[in-house]
């Protein structure tokens, strides 16, 4: 009578501190350049080495430019941070996929695609979107830099056990409705703090029917509901995805691993601290209108009014709409868009590029739209070219940039200018997230593609 989460968590308990957190063993630590330098400094200050360096994988992704990666990074501060990661990885003897390595890319895209993320693992990274890896049936969550240092020093972390929540989505998804829309719908329904304190397991027919890339998108966004993480029980879809990947077990090790992975599901009589149920038929293509990811609606809807809101809610809501330049009660369809961003650890995988390409095929990029199409990794980039998607995109007026986090958080040059509207497949529409003053509307790759060819906010179903 254990949940999937309980099985993996319990298997990794080293010990329980009395009236305190659990000491949990960590199978994989992923590190990027932004949240690791102070952890390495901490180790040096204490005269420590990494306890299990072979379990740690590092790669730069946040600062990497999306052009001319073969040349030194122009911004000296970004360059210093990327160089520091390379130096630290070498000094501490860690695996490092540097810029221009064919293995480089966004850490949450690379982990699964290389077979580094496997079912049953505990995985952490100094990045809130570590929840992504839960799609493979792992317990994966984001941590702070002090905690990164903790794991480097001991391969363990001290963590309070979260509560468990199961979100079941019954039924079949409608035309033009993607994993991104499921996630935006959930955030809208349960808010950006509705799952705080919980670890989510996603279940139900609509979830089972998602491909691995779709599941990765959904789990990626668990943190946007406040959850510690989100996971999906591994099944034949998962096993088929992993088999043959570079770091995945092979031969006898594969058979042994597979037998274990097949036990990784919640028991029929498992009890969750909270259960939530949605019907796939209620989910439409979604878009956000405000400055947190829970401020979403069906793309055909109107922005809500302040009726029934408390004073604090109202002032936060009004501040948000003022930032976005929108009015309460108005529709978004037909509103002009300036930028379109396809990419990020949320929607930078091959299927996202396939979906975007399928929609723009036979159309042209609208005049006045600046489109940034950024693959999540060099492997995704290679696959795009192998499938000839690049040719279709080029004919429609789009070009593909080099991999990295890019405009999702604008730590490189890819900044949306102040006041401009961007339909973005990334994960956060916070004030200034994509550049100071930038106005972000989160949506799926299909909705982004529809905006890219029409120049205005459009229901993608009209173009499918």
């Amino acid at each position: 009578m254990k949940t999937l989460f309980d099985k993996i968590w319990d298997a990794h308990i080293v010990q329980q501190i009395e009236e305190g957190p659990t000491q949990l063993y960590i199978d994989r630590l992923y590190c990027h350049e932004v949240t690791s330098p102070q952890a390495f400094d901490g180790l040096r200050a204490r005269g420590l080495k990494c306890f299990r360096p072979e379990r740690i994988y590092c790669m730069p992704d946040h600062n990497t430019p999306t052009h001319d990666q073969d040349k030194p990074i122009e911004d000296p501060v970004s360059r210093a941070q990327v160089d520091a990661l390379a130096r630290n990885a070498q000094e501490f003897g860690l695996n490092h996929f540097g810029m221009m390595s064919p293995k480089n890319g966004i850490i949450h895209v690379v982990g699964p695609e290389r077979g580094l993320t496997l079912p049953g693992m505990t995985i952490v990274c100094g990045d809130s979107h570590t929840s992504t890896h839960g799609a493979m049936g792992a317990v994966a969550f984001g941590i702070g830099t002090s905690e990164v240092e903790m794991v480097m020093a001991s391969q363990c972390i001290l963590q309070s056990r979260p509560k468990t929540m199961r979100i079941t989505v019954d039924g079949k998804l409608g035309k033009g409705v993607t994993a991104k829309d499921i996630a935006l719908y959930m955030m809208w329904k349960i808010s950006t703090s509705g799952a705080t304190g919980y670890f989510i397991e996603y279940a139900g027919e609509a979830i089972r029917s998602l491909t691995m890339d779709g599941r990765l998108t959904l789990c990626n966004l668990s943190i946007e509901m406040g959850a510690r993480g989100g996971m999906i029980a591994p099944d034949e879809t998962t096993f088929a995805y992993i088999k043959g990947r570079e770091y995945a077990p092979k031969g006898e090790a594969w058979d042994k691993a597979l037998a274990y992975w097949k036990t990784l599901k919640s028991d029929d009589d498992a009890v969750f601290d909270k259960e939530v149920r949605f019907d796939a038929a209620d989910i439409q293509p979604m878009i956000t209108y405000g400055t947190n990811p829970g401020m979403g609606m069906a793309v055909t809807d109107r922005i809500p009014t302040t009726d029934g809101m408390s004073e604090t809610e109202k002032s936060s809501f009004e501040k948000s709409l003022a930032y976005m330049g929108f009015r309460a009660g108005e529709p978004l369809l037909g509103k002009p868009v300036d930028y379109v961003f396809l990419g990020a650890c949320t929607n930078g995988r091959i299927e996202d590029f396939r979906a975007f390409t399928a929609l723009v095929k036979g159309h042209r990029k609208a005049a006045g739209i600046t489109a940034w199409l950024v693959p999540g990794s060099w492997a995704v980039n290679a696959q795009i070219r192998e499938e000839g998607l690049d040719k279709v995109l080029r004919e429609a007026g789009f070009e593909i940039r080099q991999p990295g986090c890019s405009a999702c958080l604008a730590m490189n040059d890819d900044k949306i200018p102040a006041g401009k509207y961007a339909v973005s497949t990334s994960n956060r529409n916070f004030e200034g997230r994509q550049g100071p003053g930038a106005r972000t509307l989160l949506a799926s790759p299909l909705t982004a593609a529809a905006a890219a060819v029409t120049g205005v906010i459009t229901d993608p179903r009209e173009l499918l």
Partner: protein
Amino acid sequence: MKQKFNIITGTCVPLPLENVDTDQIIPARFLKATTREGFGENLFRDWRYNADGTPNKNFVLNNPAYSGEILVAGKNFGSGSSREHAAWAIADYGFRVVVSSFFADIHKNNELNNFVLPVVVSESFLKELFDTIAANPKSEVEVNLPAQTITNKTTGRSETFEINAYKKHCLMNGLDDIDYLLSQKSAIETWEKKNK
């Protein structure tokens, strides 16, 4: 940063907004430093300064009426990115306590790991506290970690807050989790042998 924590009494800085995310606490473009120091000057950067770099007079940190080591914020404080830089910015600016009715998980841990105490209070306590501070910016609050209480000194209203015994011990004695984990090496190795 490893300051021992006991009782703090003082004035508060109010931020009556909900869902203050870590991108607002410290925007991504300031995350490029490779040390832990100096983040305080960019705390709430885009609310605190205008686009031309001049201070935004309407933002609370630029209002000389308000000061203190206690930040009071609306619910769901610290949501979004896991960046510990947000906690470093709060600590570096000089805050030692953050009071809210609800904290995002990762940020809460980050505060604790930097000897900043997140204090969760009820919505009604929080509302009363905002009202008290608005009426008189010099109103004081007492945060008593040993007793796990927070008291609005103006109204006399007091609430207890939760913190696990382990973390309380760490804060009161200036110890961090790494100190603890380093003392547990043999337990870790035993676990590894069993789970090969």
